[in-house]
């Protein structure tokens, strides 16, 4: 009966209760959705890092990462490879030769890391090949004996390898996407023109298009104007094994786009045989091995066992390779809980205020209940239940709304295109797919109940202090 009475009391003053419930709903929804977006961004970052950049475990000489000395290679690589492949939980291993180089085109240059790989091995360890921009090449498939390179989109833009051109085909393509004729008319004077950089192209577009047109069609125009001539040339210069400068012209056989500016600017993949041939290093001269596991959760255990198996080599798990990722995944859960606690603490004040009004308004009724035999425990319990119900109704509503919205955005994602550069500079994709675990919902539910209970304490204690005889005399 106490439960029924408490539940009905919540709806006694519908407007007041709805205001409190609405505030809890908005607070919970806002908190959960914000966490889902942050969580989605971090999960995407970790997923991208593990699957496109670093994999799970690295093996190298203990001093190699200090200054990437080309002489510090992995001794007995065949033995090490065998040992790794025989380790339970290891699905694939790739070997890499790493040289610091300068990438040059006619107009620009940039410092890069030149990584010699075996494309077939590499495809089993990382899925970088899946991020190749269509139409830019077939680096991982081709059997061509030319010197080929696979570079990031940001590096390609930096070196002016990617151009932006407006031509008839591009304008037709925009028309088929239902870009308004007024916009096409503004682009037509640029027909036949090629812009050497994204910056130059965007500058002209800003000049001719209105803000609204830029917002609505800017990204599409940029995408359609993007142009790359297959097998464009790039020179890579570096030092050979004797510290003599050398280099070669490479043809670009693929451009990858992983939404990580830093990586795209620095990592150039070439075929191992080309790199070893140019540097004069031995055919089995590898600086690093990347190890892919079948289960991310087993990384620490397997890394520990490899350390024992491979004394004299440095074995690094992904959290040690990228400590910023480790911080994001390990600390961030605590941060989410603190974030929700702060939101709920703010909401609690509203609930306390409402419950104090409830106790004040019902002084006579509470006096009557005590008079007819409702003991202090039950009075306390009834007020606490009202507070918990108030919090839960708002909390559950907020959770349902956030679940629906997360469900809707989980497949389409949220596009922060306006901030794309900033996101990619930090290694994050600008198109985020919110995600939240069931355990987080459970945590939030528990926190809501605790908030309801704690919010009820002061009002309930006020109720307990009422003298029934005096309370009954209240008007």
């Amino acid at each position, binding site marked *: 009966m106490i439960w*029924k009475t408490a539940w009905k009391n919540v709806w006694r003053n519908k407007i007041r209760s709805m205001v409190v419930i609405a505030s809890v709903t908005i607070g919970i929804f806002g908190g959960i959705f914000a966490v889902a977006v942050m969580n989605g961004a971090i999960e995407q970052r970790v997923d991208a890092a593990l699957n496109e950049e670093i994999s799970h475990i690295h093996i190298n000489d203990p001093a190699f990462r200090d200054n990437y000395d080309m002489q510090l290679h992995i001794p007995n690589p065949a033995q090490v490879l065998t040992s790794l492949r025989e380790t339970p939980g290891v699905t694939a291993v790739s070997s890499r030769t790493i040289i610091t180089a300068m990438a040059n085109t006619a107009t620009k240059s940039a410092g890069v890391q030149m990584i010699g790989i075996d494309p077939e091995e590499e495809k089993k360890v990382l899925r970088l090949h899946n991020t190749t921009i269509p139409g830019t090449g077939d680096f991982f498939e081709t059997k061509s004996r030319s010197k080929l390179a696979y570079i990031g989109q940001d590096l390609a833009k930096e070196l002016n390898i990617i151009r932006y051109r407006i031509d008839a085909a591009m304008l037709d393509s925009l028309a088929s996407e239902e870009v308004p004729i007024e916009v096409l008319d503004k682009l037509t004077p640029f027909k036949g023109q090629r812009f050497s950089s994204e910056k130059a192209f965007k500058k002209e577009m800003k000049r001719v298009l209105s803000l609204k047109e830029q917002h609505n069609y800017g990204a599409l125009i940029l995408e359609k104007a993007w142009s790359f001539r297959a097998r464009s040339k790039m020179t890579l210069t570096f030092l050979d094994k004797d510290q003599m400068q050398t280099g070669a012209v490479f043809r670009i056989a693929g451009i990858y786009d992983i939404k990580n500016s830093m990586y795209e600017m620095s990592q150039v993949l070439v075929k191992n045989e080309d790199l070893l041939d140019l540097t004069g290093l031995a055919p089995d001269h590898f600086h690093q091995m990347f190890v892919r596991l079948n289960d991310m959760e087993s990384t620490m255990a397997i890394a520990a066992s490899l350390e024992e198996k491979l004394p004299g080599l440095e074995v690094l798990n992904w959290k040690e390779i990228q400590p910023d990722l480790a911080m994001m995944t390990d600390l961030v859960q605590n941060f989410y809980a603190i974030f929700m606690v702060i939101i709920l603490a703010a909401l609690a004040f509203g609930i306390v205020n409402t419950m104090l009004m409830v106790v004040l308004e019902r002084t006579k009724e509470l006096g009557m209940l005590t008079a007819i*035999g409702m003991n202090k425990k039950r009075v306390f319990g009834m007020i606490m239940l009202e507070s918990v119900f108030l919090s839960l109704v708002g909390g559950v509503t907020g959770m349902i709304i956030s679940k629906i919205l997360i469900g809707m955005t989980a497949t389409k994602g949220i596009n922060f295109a306006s901030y794309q550069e900033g996101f990619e500079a930090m290694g994050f994709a600008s198109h985020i797919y919110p995600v939240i675990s069931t355990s987080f919902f459970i945590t939030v539910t528990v926190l809501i109940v605790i908030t309801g209970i704690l919010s009820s304490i002061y009002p309930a204690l006020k109720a307990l202090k009422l003298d029934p*005889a005096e309370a009954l005399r209240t008007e």
Partner: protein
Amino acid sequence: MKVLELKNVHKIYNSSEVKVHAVNGVTLDFDKGEFAAIVGPSGSGKTTLLNMIGGLDTPTEGEIMVDHTNLAGLKSSALIDFRMRNIGFVFQSYNLIPVLTAKENVEFIMSLQKWNRKDRDERTYELLKAVGLEDRVNSRPSKLSGGQQQRVAVARALASKPKFVLADEPTANLDSKSTETLLDIMEELNKEEGITFIFSTHDARVVKKARRVITVEDGKVISDERKN
């Protein structure tokens, strides 16, 4: 068989400016099945007396024995429990729980006492029928007239078969027709259930119905008449 005994009960209120002797040496006892009214002008001490009988206030001096239990000797939580099991209350302003129906208001005490559902329902329907509200079982107080609400309050007071029912000015907010109906019902229930009714009242109609009239003035009992 005595259900209630007051032995030399005093209640003195001490404020910083004045000392008020609200109840001044009252000695009374009540048998099972009595239908008694305590009358007196405002300030005579009858409400204070009723509060002490009901365990809502403690005497400064003296004893109040309910079924051989001294109320003054009980701690707060024990007193509340004692009230729940032994004393029924009918208040001037009905004091029903507005969010509960007539049925839920009547069965409230029984649910606190953990009666099983079958017995609870049986007793509830029996009482609501006795007070003439069997067709308003699922109505909330806001849908009932003042007289109907007070009848529900009477049913609630009797629900757990208390030793006695204290009614403080139960007819003060009712019209004459409702008052007559209510008094008839209470008299009928008094006879049927054998539960003692003690009224605190100014209402002459209540005094007329009562079989015992205790007059209080300045905190003292000045007369105690039993009618045949």
